[in-house]
């Protein structure tokens, strides 16, 4: 029993299925009579759709249906509204929100925007007809850069939204920050870009829609992170049907990272196609389409300013950002460059004053929505880069400057100037442990060894503090079978994080039953009444606590049954190690006996019915938690070519209670890999004039590969528990993206400090590094 307890590194239950090719992803599913849909996407960044001549394509072999914007308008389908947590401009008026339909109605506003859907008997027939579809476009000027989009004279994306302006935003104490800047000994300022990236999940987006004319019910099997919220959009906003008529399932989903959070247009299109054709309709994005049409992330241009005293004490932090979000608000596009990046400004440092402001622009690019961290990695990078830059330009030791300004435990709990409720954490201790782990004693020798080879070596440490997010409520249901099986249903959802292991682990440990007996069900609107899906590192924090709550409700019921069976007072019953025990008589009864009794009327107390242990419960978070930690990197830089290699990496993370260290390690490693990608390799590039995507394949978009990654040493700090939730967890999913980019970038700057290099924008490609060295000389 112990080996499946909380805190044990159980190997993933789902691994065998995934690693042996037995997973069920969308493209593995086939239905009788299934037909195939292909999305026709705009080849232009901005163009009027003058006419679509569908007749000849319709006449091609096997073609069943062609859907255009005209059809969509005629059907009267609704638009998909933004769910951004920030909905107002600074002046209190609502943000500017263009109507977002499932496909372009009369104007296409980015390369890859759906313009039509072609459905045919076979995929090849659909591809042929899509290619033959005659669309007359009238090309318009495009703007992809958010700064240019906001400038006077820029091409206008929407007639009724002047200046491509979505919203402006501010948070913090503007005047107090201004005063601190005015009276500080030093002020440093730096323009910092968070490069635009995309998630590239292993499984591209795809879905199958079916329609039953008798019941008028739809079934949507979809590679999504969020069945409940997206059902609400597809059913309520688009199709105008009651939610119950749309059964939304996410089978195994091969990665999401935020890019599968939102309600995209394509599933809505095939739902309609399924009804029109009377056939199940499958649509699978190709990889190239994925680059064009998946939501992107980051893409923020900021000016970051730090005010500090001559002894190095931080006085204030001020960040002003411009973010481009594509031509729509999408699902939560406006939030990331506003509230998302604002909240965790300043990281774990003691800032008396902070102020964040931003402007959000519409651009002729793919939409922006959350990408692993959604604003927190941006904030962490901005904070750590400006601190590092201040240390370099003012002559402070970068490690010492950080250490002296960290919030100390005696300052907690506190609300940061950004309104973040920091209840727990020991930032200096986590910092010191990271330093200790990273073998500073051996550093000089490693620098010398690198120098032997003509290589520069650098080190940087990056403490971070972030927060969880996503839906605040979660459902957990537990059903007991007479055969001893236990089914656990939860509304949060895994796209590869291992919920099938960690969630049953919590239930099994709490109930004292065998882990292998638990069957896990997720990603199904009929399995749970509500569900928050995946996002914001919320699963253990919200879903895990729902499981714990369900388990505790079950053991409470179990106590009543045990008391009845043992002829005891309920108050005298203790539950521990899988058994109910009368503390007075010493008599005990095993959980399994209680479960068995729960099916038999004769063995139950009067008020209880057979099956009474089945439990469904909703847990609601009150306040988001504060995952934090400290990452450190050692890099080698080849000054001749500019190539960077991350040589060593250390992480000490405070995720609160660790449920499964093996899965936590996976989260850290994956996050660090994506952070390394952003720091060194990845960047979505659009052509400035044409708005064409230049990084439209894996030949041009550089994802990190296994051999780009260093060996990582990972440890956890569990000595600053949070009381914000019963499980004591803080969230683990996005931390790597917060810690890795500043650790890696600042380590490169450290390596090149002797050359006089002070700043290089991400990604630190070899040519950029080489040029920085050359221009610093």
């Amino acid at each position, binding site marked *: 029993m112990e080996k499946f307890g909380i805190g044990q590194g159980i190997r993933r239950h789902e691994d065998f299925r995934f690693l042996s090719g037995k997973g069920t992803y969308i493209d593995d599913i086939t239905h009788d009579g299934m037909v195939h849909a292909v999305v026709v996407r705009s080849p232009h960044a901005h163009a009027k759709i003058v006419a679509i001549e569908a007749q000849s394509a319709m006449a091609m072999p096997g073609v069943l249906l062609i859907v255009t914007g005209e059809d969509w308008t005629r059907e009267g389908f609704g638009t998909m509204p933004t769910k951004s947590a920030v909905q107002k401009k600074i002046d209190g008026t609502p943000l500017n929100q263009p109507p977002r339909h499932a496909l372009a109605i009369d104007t296409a506003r980015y390369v890859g925007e759906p313009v039509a859907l072609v459905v045919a008997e076979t995929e090849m027939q659909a591809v042929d007809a899509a290619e033959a579809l005659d669309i007359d476009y009238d090309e318009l000027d495009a703007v992809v850069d958010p700064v240019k989009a906001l400038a006077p004279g820029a091409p206008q994306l929407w007639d009724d939204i002047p200046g491509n302006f979505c919203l402006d935003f501010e948070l913090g104490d503007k005047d107090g920050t201004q005063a601190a800047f005015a009276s500080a000994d030093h002020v440093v300022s730096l323009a910092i870009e968070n490069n635009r990236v995309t998630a590239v999940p292993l499984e591209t987006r795809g879905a199958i829609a079916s329609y039953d004319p008798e019941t008028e019910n739809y079934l949507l099997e979809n590679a999504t992170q969020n069945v409940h919220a997206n059902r609400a959009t597809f059913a309520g906003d688009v199709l105008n049907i009651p939610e119950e008529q749309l059964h939304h399932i996410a089978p195994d989903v091969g990665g999401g990272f935020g890019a599968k959070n939102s309600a995209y247009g394509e599933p809505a299109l095939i739902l309609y196609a399924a009804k029109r054709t009377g056939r199940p309709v499958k649509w699978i994005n190709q990889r190239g389409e994925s680059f064009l049409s998946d939501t992107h992330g980051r893409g923020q241009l900021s000016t970051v300013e730090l005010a500090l005293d001559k002894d190095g004490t931080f006085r204030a932090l001020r960040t002003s950002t411009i973010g481009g979000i594509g031509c729509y608000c999408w699902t939560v596009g406006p939030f990331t460059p506003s509230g998302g990046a604002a909240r965790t400004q300043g990281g774990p440092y003691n800032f008396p004053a902070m102020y964040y402001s931003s402007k959000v622009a519409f651009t002729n690019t793919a939409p922006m929505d959350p990408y692993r961290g959604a604003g927190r990695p941006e904030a962490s990078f901005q904070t750590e880069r400006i601190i590092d830059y201040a240390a370099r330009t003012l002559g402070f030791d970068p490690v010492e400057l950080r250490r002296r300004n960290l919030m100390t435990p005696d300052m907690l709990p506190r609300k940061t100037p950004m309104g973040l409720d920091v209840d727990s954490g020991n930032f200096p201790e986590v910092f010191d442990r990271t330093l200790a782990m990273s073998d500073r004693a051996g550093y000089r020798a490693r620098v010398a060894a690198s120098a032997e080879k003509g290589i520069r070596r650098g080190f940087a440490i990056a403490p971070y503090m972030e927060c969880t997010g996503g839906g605040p409520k979660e459902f957990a249901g537990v059903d007991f079978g007479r055969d001893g099986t236990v089914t656990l249903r939860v509304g949060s959802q895994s796209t590869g994080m291992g919920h099938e292991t960690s969630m049953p682990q919590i239930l099994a440990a709490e109930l004292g039953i065998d882990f292998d007996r638990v069957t896990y069900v997720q990603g199904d609107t009929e399995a749970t009444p509500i569900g928050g899906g995946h996002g914001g590192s919320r699963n253990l924090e919200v879903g895990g606590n729902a499981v714990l709550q369900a388990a505790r409700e079950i053991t409470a019921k179990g106590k009543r049954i045990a008391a009845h069976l043992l002829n005891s007072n309920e108050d005298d019953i203790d539950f521990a190690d899988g058994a109910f025990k009368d503390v007075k008589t010493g008599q005990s009864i095993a959980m399994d006996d209680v479960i068995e009794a729960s099916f038999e009327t004769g063995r139950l107390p009067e008020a209880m019915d057979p099956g009474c242990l089945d439990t469904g419960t909703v847990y609601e978070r009150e306040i988001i938690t504060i995952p934090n930690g400290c990452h450190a990197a050692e890099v080698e830089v080849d000054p001749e070519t500019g*190539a960077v290699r991350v040589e060593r990496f250390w992480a000490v993370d405070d995720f609160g209670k660790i449920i499964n260290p093996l899965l936590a390690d996976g989260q850290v490693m994956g996050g660090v890999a994506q952070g390394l990608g952003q720091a060194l390799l990845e960047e979505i590039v659009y052509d400035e004039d044409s708005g064409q995507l230049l*990084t439209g394949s*894996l030949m*041009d978009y*550089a994802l990190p590969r296994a051999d780009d990654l260093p060996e990582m040493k990972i440890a956890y700090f569990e000595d600053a528990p949070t009381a914000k939730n019963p499980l004591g967890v803080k969230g683990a999913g996005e931390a790597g993206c917060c810690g890795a980019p500043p650790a890696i970038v600042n380590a490169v700057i450290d390596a090149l400090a002797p050359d006089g290099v002070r700043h290089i924008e991400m990604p630190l490609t070899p040519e950029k590094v080489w040029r920085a060295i050359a221009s610093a000389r």
Partner: protein
Amino acid sequence: MYEFQYHRPESLDEAAKIFAGADDPKFLAGGMTMIPVMKQRLAMPSDIIDLSRIGELTGLSAGAGMVTIGAMTPHAEVAGSKEVEKAIPALAALAGGIGDPAVRNRGTIGGSIANNDPSADYPAAVLGLNATVHTTARDIAADAFFTDMFETALEDDELITRVSFPAPEKAAYAKFANPASRYATAGVFVAKTATGIRVAVTGAGACVFRVEAMEQALSKDFSPGALDGIAVPADELNADIHASAEYRSHLIGVLARRAVLQTG
């Protein structure tokens, strides 16, 4: 992909007959370029003639100062060959650095040089080692084989059968890989051969090319320092989102010196 007829002949004669009788045929070697191009519908051959079953195109031999590699030999086989490793270690190392394991196990030397991608690695070895390309029609010297971007001296119906590499006194290949594709952003093959010093550059220009100034300098003094001050002008080089022409010009210098150093 568009529809096409698929053939898998077992001899060169059979392949030639199919080719002659087809409308717009294409030969398929490892398919590392052809298949992605077809999947994206950028090519519409009427017939695909898969060469994988033709015994005459396989085999690898080394001896008498010569390594001969059948056109359909995958990169991994060259990289893993003890004979190649012994005769021309730089060639084995180059093959072992192409793409990734999947590419190295599917991609072939014949396919690579017939395609003549400006960023491919093999053309640098063929040109740098002064190899001979044997075809169904003739023998072509390396210097005459690569003509322009994705262009070679091959006729449409002409197939590479094997490539023979004379073993050099010493040689090395230094590559700076594109982090996304792992093709060469720039790659320099330096060889000291019986007929003189050869320096071949791939990845940087429209097509693999030799750098005479470097060859002459190294002929006088085979040391990295001999290359100081010799640069390939940026205006002759490629520029894309991964690397400017100026950076490529710089890389050629760095890689050439490293290759000389690596030859030991």
